[in-house]
């Protein structure tokens, strides 16, 4: 099926990415949204200082006002400041999971695809096994066994997300390894490790980048689902999902400011990363993982 040239050359890949972004409105919109949201979460607290540690029940559930632009929540935290702080953990977790899963998934998939035969068969059945156990089931099981911390949640989400990238990279490597340049590298005495790292992985870069972008979006969503199930980050940490589900308890009391801002920023973030992933998918000519 794939007789086309390798999508991304090892050296020009940065330029190719830049070109992919420049020529695509979806990518630019997505990138712009991510930049604005990241600035809001990470630079915002420098300009807009709030106390996100001390519970102040006398200030709880205040509607938006000049002093509290988005009101306060049930613990008396400033909602606007909390959105910034929650965004930091949501974005950090999303990006950390994307990096971890991309590295593990890429190496696993590349080794399986390159070595082939029995090793490949065994490695793929391991993936099938974990794919058979629904992620949320495993996640709930492990979160119920161990107390969730930021690091544990990153580890658990990564444990669930590396399977997709591993399969995609393996598929890509299976078709790459028969190409002339890989055979040439092998004939010139290139070792397996060198061929995987220098030739196969860079040529699968398109697939890897696209799946990494989708992983950020998916991790932010999964984290919010955990927050709804009460298994998100423990207080005083905040994440958008826990904030949103806590706010939903007060929806019928008319406390809209605890619901819609959190929902809007969460959904916008996920849409933004999906837009980037989808645009890169088209621009880099990646098959089989569009949204």
């Amino acid at each position, binding site marked *: 099926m794939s007789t086309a040239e390798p999508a991304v050359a090892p050296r020009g890949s940065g330029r190719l990415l830049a070109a992919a972004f420049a020529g695509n409105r979806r990518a630019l919109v997505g990138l712009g949204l991510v930049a604005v949201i990241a600035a809001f979460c990470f630079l915002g607290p420098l300009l807009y200082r709030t106390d996100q540690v001390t519970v102040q029940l006398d200030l709880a559930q205040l509607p938006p006002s000049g002093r509290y632009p988005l009101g306060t929540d049930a613990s008396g935290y400033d909602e606007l400041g909390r959105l910034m702080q929650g965004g930091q953990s949501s974005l950090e977790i999303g990006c950390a999971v994307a990096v971890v899963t991309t590295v593990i998934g890429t190496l696993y998939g590349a080794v399986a695809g390159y070595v082939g035969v029995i090793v490949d068969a065994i490695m793929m*059945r*391991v993936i*099938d*096994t*974990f*794919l*058979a*156990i*629904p*992620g*949320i*089931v*495993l996640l*709930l*099981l492990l*979160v*119920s*066994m*161990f107390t969730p911390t930021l690091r544990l949640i990153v580890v658990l989400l990564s444990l669930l997300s590396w399977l997709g990238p591993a399969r995609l990279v393996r598929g890509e490597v299976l078709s790459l390894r028969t190409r002339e340049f890989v055979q040439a590298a092998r004939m010139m005495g290139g070792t397996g490790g060198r061929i995987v790292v220098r030739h196969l992985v860079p040529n699968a870069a398109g697939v890897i980048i696209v799946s990494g972008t989708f992983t950020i*979006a998916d991790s932010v*969503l999964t984290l*919010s*689902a955990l927050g*709804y*199930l*009460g*298994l998100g980050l423990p207080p005083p940490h905040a994440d958008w*999902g826990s904030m*949103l*589900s806590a706010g*939903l308890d007060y*929806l*019928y009391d008319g406390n809209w400011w605890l619901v819609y801002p959190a*929902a809007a920023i*969460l*959904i916008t973030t*996920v*849409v933004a990363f*999906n*837009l980037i992933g*989808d645009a890169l998918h088209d621009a880099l000519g990646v098959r089989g993982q*569009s*949204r």
Partner: protein
Amino acid sequence: MRAYLLRRTGQAVVVVIGVMVVTFALIHLEPGSAARATLGTRATDERIAVFNAANGLNRPLTAQFVSFVKQAAAGNLGTSYSLHQPVSTLIAQRLPRDGVLLGLSTLLALALALPMGIFQAVRRGRAEDHAFTVLSFGLYSIPDFFFGLLLIAIFSVQLHLLPSQAPQAQSIGGILADPRALVLPVLTLALVSMASFSRYVRSSAIITLAQEYIQVARSTGLPERLVLRRHVLRNSLLPVITVLGLSARDIVAGAVIAEAVFNYPGMGQLFFQAATSKDYPILLGSTLVVGVATVIGSLIADIAYSLLDPRIRYVDG
């Protein structure tokens, strides 16, 4: 064909064994051991030793694994700590209810996604295509729980059109007898799945539309509606079968959330309650059942695919 079926079935058997190994490993990962979980944290060492001996937990791991497999194969998945009923009974009560909820929502998702994806492919690059793309990106990016609660807020609380709770009947007949209560949970799951299904249909329909046989069909004077129905729809259906097999885990994840939102007494709710009360036999039993069901589901999907599309057998070896 026979070789392909045999190989694919062999793989499924290996994966089922893998699922059992993982489930068994998880039992032993349980902090504080099964004895502590059952007898409480203040149990004496003597009582724990008696419990372990009575439940065979002092035997070698391999022997324990063999008896775990035998028990599971006989349908014995242990007894719930909190509900004091056999796990197999609890699962057998709830699994058919999930069949109703997930079956209906997946069918609805497909019924919506197929025309939507093909319509987008036909109008590729035009305003209609972009509008539906925005719609599916939006739906895909909304957290399931928020979407469900939003539907409740609109249709139950504001408009008083539909009940906010899923049917509470025990039997399948009872659930189906209350279709109004099924609307919101089914809609929540269906629209989120529709968002991702329609993207696959769109991209496979775009590829199909570019094929020469479509040109041929058009040049014979076949009306465009028939071209779409006979050629594009059928050929775009194929990848959807694979996507269905692969999205089993997302469907289960959606079910856990939707059942929590709409208080639907299915596997998802059983599992979530077990997770919060640390009821390990239920957690592990349902992990095993869902895992095996997923393997069988994707095996059926692959076999269906290979029957419908002979090319796949050659491509895959």
